[in-house]
């Protein structure tokens, strides 16, 4: 019952719902209190992240109100929208009553008057609240005798389709563009039964957060063109993860089936992204399924290339590194840790390098940046900011920095590393990439590769260093690994493995785990336990709630 209550609030009013006492957060609405208390109250227009409009009339309840003249508490003569009514100490409401049930049933009938019976071809089917509420609260048959009004789908933007037939006019999407993105593209046009959602002529729905309107839509009215017809939602599996698109680190859900990621959806996280995520992150996973990915390890000795078994690789690498350290000294070894690596992986690789060569240099990979931080509603500052897209287009700069700080010893930034490497300061280096786009200057890279005797390159895609590398290793994308990222605010967040890496490739963490001399199964948690000794912050990584605070 205390799910809706945050610890920071002093006063917890108690209200009575259906003769059961519920404790709730001061200032919450009756609907929120009921949802947190486990009641399945139908609602379309209410969304905890948006303003309340009380337009869908589904959450109406019987309530005991103070009489306007006598101020005595008495049952109000009409039903009252529970999303709009704040809780007050001693309040009494009824949800399980005949007038309330009748209201929901009648509302559902109106919602479904013109709704086409196209669930089998609608992408929302399976996660549609028209289906759920119709099943739970509606009536089986339509009494409509007139022909249904048909309204073909509209192309409202480059990434989104609007099926007006299926709309319940909850206005969540409109409020999203007004309150969160601040771009005001959507509006209501026409009147009465012809009321519909539309964009202004010449101004399509095209802002960096527009994908969220599809998420807030409780029915199949707004649909992603990207996911359209790709898969039925009930065949998708969901894995909680963290977006690797930028340093904001939104909590997401990876929806995948048969080892293919089909979509990313935001997950409620009050500390980072609330309910939202940006389009760049939402559609930025495509590189995971690129054909050009490196999938086989290669070891070179002289002019000979060979593809060893994965199980033999730790031995080969350890031997070659030791050989190199003995010949050239341990201060001539370096490791470049990419900001796309998880903290665990960076720590394991750092540990392996430092164990083999105690005076080795640890380097943080280049930080991809683009433009300025984008704040929303557009141009918001200070407390008005509801969402930020970071200019730092990597998920884990802070995490790598934390690992490097804890490791101590000699550390460099990437530019300095390139400068000294091209001057011949290193005889052995392990360079980890994992960037979705090209990240190396070709000339410098070739020059650098020629100077480093034992160059171990690990990347998702081919890069110019690989030509001169002694060992080329494939890397995994973040949906194929488990671990943790530290976002720009310093929050340590864990992510789970959604799909398996390309055939035969072990996940990076597991490979480093074996390389660093650990035995058994690699899990992010096991490594974090080890890390917590050096970096106490890793003792408790933050995990966003799996279920949102609202029903949908």
């Amino acid at each position: 019952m205390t799910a809706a209550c945050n610890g920071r609030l002093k006063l917890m009013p108690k209200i009575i719902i259906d003769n059961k006492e519920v404790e709730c957060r001061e200032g919450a609405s009756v609907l929120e209190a009921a949802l947190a208390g486990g009641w399945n109250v139908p609602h379309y227009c209410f969304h905890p992240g948006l303003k309340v409009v009380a337009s869908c009339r589904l959450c109406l309840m019987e309530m005991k109100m103070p009489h306007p003249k006598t101020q005595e508490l008495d049952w109000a003569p009409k039903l009252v929208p529970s999303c709009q009514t704040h809780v007050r100490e001693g309040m009494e409401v009824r949800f399980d009553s005949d007038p309330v049930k009748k209201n929901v049933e009648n509302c559902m009938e109106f919602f479904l008057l013109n709704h086409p019976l196209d669930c089998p071809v609608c992408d929302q089917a399976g996660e549609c609240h028209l289906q759920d509420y119709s099943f739970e609260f509606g009536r089986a048959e339509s009494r409509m005798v007139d022909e249904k009004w048909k309204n073909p789908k509209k192309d409202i933007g480059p990434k989104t389709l609007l099926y007006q037939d299926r709309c319940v006019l909850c206005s969540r999407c409109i409020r999203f563009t007004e309150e969160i993105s601040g771009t005001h593209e959507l509006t209501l046009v026409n009147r009465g039964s012809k009321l519909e959602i539309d964009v202004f002529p010449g101004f399509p729905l095209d802002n960096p957060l527009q994908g969220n309107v599809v998420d807030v839509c409780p029915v199949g009215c707004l649909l992603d063109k990207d996911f359209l017809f790709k898969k039925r939602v009930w065949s998708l599996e969901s894995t909680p993860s963290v977006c690797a698109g930028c340093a904001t680190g939104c909590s997401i859900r990876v929806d995948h089936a048969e080892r293919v990621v089909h979509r990313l959806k935001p997950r409620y996280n009050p500390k980072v992204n609330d309910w939202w995520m940006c389009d760049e992150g939402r559609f930025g996973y495509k590189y995971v399924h690129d054909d050009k990915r490196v999938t086989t390890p290669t070891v070179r000795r002289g002019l000979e290339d060979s593809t060893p078994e994965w199980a033999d690789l730790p031995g080969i690498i350890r031997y070659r590194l030791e050989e190199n350290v003995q010949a050239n000294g341990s201060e001539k070894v370096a490791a470049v840790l990419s900001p796309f690596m998880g903290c665990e992986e960076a720590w394991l690789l750092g540990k392996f390098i430092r164990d083999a060569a105690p005076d080795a240099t640890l380097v943080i990979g280049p930080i991809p940046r683009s433009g300025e931080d984008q704040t929303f509603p557009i141009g918001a500052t200070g407390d008005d900011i509801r969402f930020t897209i970071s200019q730092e287009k990597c998920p884990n700069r802070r995490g790598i920095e934390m690992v490097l700080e804890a490791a101590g010893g000699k550390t460099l930034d990437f530019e300095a590393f390139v400068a000294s490497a091209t001057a011949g300061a290193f005889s052995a280096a392990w360079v980890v990439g994992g960037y979705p786009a090209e990240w190396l200057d070709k000339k410098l890279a070739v020059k650098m590769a020629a100077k480093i005797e034992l160059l171990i390159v690990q990347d998702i895609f081919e890069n110019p260093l690989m030509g001169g590398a002694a060992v080329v290793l494939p890397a995994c994308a973040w949906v194929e690994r488990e671990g943790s990222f530290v976002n720009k605010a310093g929050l340590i967040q864990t992510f789970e493995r959604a799909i398996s890496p390309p055939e035969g490739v072990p996940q990076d963490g597991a490979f480093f785990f074996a390389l660093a001399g650990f035995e058994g199964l690699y899990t992010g948690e096991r490594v974090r336990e080890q890390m917590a000794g050096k970096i106490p912050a890793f003792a408790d990584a933050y995990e966003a709630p799996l279920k949102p605070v609202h029903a949908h």
Partner: protein
Amino acid sequence: MIDDKDIVMVDEPVLSVGERFYLPQILDGMRTTIRHLFKTLFGRPITIQYPEEQRELRVANYRGVHRLNRDEKGRVACVACYMCETACPAHCIHIDAGESPWEDREKYPIKFDLDELRCIYCGMCEEACPVDAIELTTEFSLVSRTREEMILDKEELLAIHDRTVAEKPRKNPRITGYENTGDRPREPAKNRTNLAKEEGA
């Protein structure tokens, strides 16, 4: 855990002297055999001379090889709703949906593969189909040299429709709202006064 009170102990029945000889039981069994023997000798034989002779199959509910129906315009009737794929207990149906090139429909199958070797011929796909696009036919003698050939694609399934449609016409699909513009002829809408009269009568 099963409670002791739920357990019923059953003793073996005591056999009579006649039963202990087993002879009456054997004779009883022989009677059935002999009855069938005479039936076959003097009546219609139970076996048939396959393949010269063919059994008559019940067209309406025999569960043989699948087919994909065509609609009245000769296009594939499937709307790619994945209901058959979802209902299939053997996971033998694989559909890739795409936007249909036709005005009157949202979705259509770009790929429709059915693995006849994995299929257990339960008929659940036919039950699940909302537009009666997939149906089981009376064809049962499916042969091929490789396993891959037994994965029938959309064209092959449509070809089966073409050669079996005369024997088994497509069932009438229930009217649903899959079309965008509604070019399907509709029953004239009843107005309220008519409805009231009908209800009154």
